[in-house]
């Protein structure tokens, strides 16, 4: 989905709040509740198998955009995780609100998602490809800044993973390799682009051979 989370290339944000090598990164967590975010996420995703991590990413993307932008990082993990426990029937929002002693807003409703297209032949390193022009209402891991853009494959993964546009909706998902696709930064962001290239890791189903019609 073209959600508020798809931030690559968005203008208007200020300086990154960090000066290099100025932090020890200890302690890892800054608030006594923060470790619960990932722990309870992995409880559901790994131990209980209530949901998968793609669904968690999508639950966070489904947060009301104002809530998403206002919430600190681990708050978003808590909201996404809680949303899935509720959607899967493990907990209810009423239970959570009673225990929290106040409102506990969850993610907005799901859409359907989509299946991966049937497997085709793989691409090879060096191939020119186009990121599809698809506008996906549900979960996708193709950032909008590459939509319709031409790039070149620099690596094909030796492992295959579930297609996230299906897995993120709890659907049966075909496994596909992903490709590290190198895009000329000027093709993505015009003359002001400051990198030589941006490499994006894209599932096979997000790609088409360059030179195909309508690209």
């Amino acid at each position, binding site marked *: 989905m073209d959600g508020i989370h798809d931030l690559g290339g968005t203008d208007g944000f200020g300086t990154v709040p960090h000066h290099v090598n100025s932090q020890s990164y200890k302690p890892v967590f800054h608030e006594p509740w923060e470790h619960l975010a990932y722990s309870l996420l992995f409880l559901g995703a790994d131990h209980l198998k209530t949901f998968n991590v793609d669904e968690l990413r999508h639950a966070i993307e489904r947060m009301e955009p104002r809530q998403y932008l206002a919430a600190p990082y681990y708050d978003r993990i808590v909201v996404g995780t809680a949303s899935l*426990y509720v959607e899967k029937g493990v907990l209810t929002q009423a239970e959570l609100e009673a225990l*929290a002693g106040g409102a506990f807003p969850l993610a907005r409703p799901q859409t359907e998602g989509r299946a991966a297209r049937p497997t085709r032949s793989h691409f090879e390193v060096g191939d020119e490809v186009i990121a599809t022009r698809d506008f996906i209402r549900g979960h996708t891991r193709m950032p909008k800044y590459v939509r319709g853009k031409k790039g070149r494959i620099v690596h094909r993964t030796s492992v295959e993973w579930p297609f996230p546009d299906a897995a993120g909706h709890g659907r049966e998902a075909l496994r596909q390799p992903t490709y590290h696709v190198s895009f000329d930064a000027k093709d993505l962001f015009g003359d002001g682009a400051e990198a030589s290239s941006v490499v994006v890791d894209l599932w096979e189903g997000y790609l088409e051979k360059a030179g195909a019609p309508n690209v």
Partner: protein
Amino acid sequence: MAPIARRAHALKEALDRKKLIPEGFIENFTKLMEVDWDPANGARVVARAWVDPAFRTLLIKDGTRACEQFGYTGPQGEYIVALENTPTLQNVIVCTLCSCTAWPVLGLPPDWYKSFEYRSRVVRESRSVLREMGLDLPESVEIKVWDTTAETRYMVLPFRPAGTEGWSEEKLASIVTKDVLIGVARPLANA
């Protein structure tokens, strides 16, 4: 809206009441996050690659297997790819869509890496962002940004700085910081 601390504890309490949290689960997972996953791990991998050409070749060819030799495996570390810097190439890692990082070798991502500022800007204004953060690269250094949009987890393999000849692996590892492994800093012999 209830404060986040109360909401987080409510989620734990609700799961607890249904007896869904095994004894020690949260404590063990938290130890993994706070202690085991550490940028010192990635630093050891880099130092080894600097002193052992065969290991360096393996790291570049199959980062996952190279890191496995140190026991650095687990969630968010299933497919590790090392990105080799040169004096004229700086690789930089980001996750524009969320916060993906190679936990076992880099540790959990730092707050600034997860900030909207970094996620929105580094793909488009990489040189300015690095400069603002304290890494002022000359125009002759090309910047390549890697967006962690799938399951590959990247680590930057910096080039060994001059002035480190004869250093031990441990001393070499000491100049490879978390920021170096993400690609927003370069290691310095006199750091």
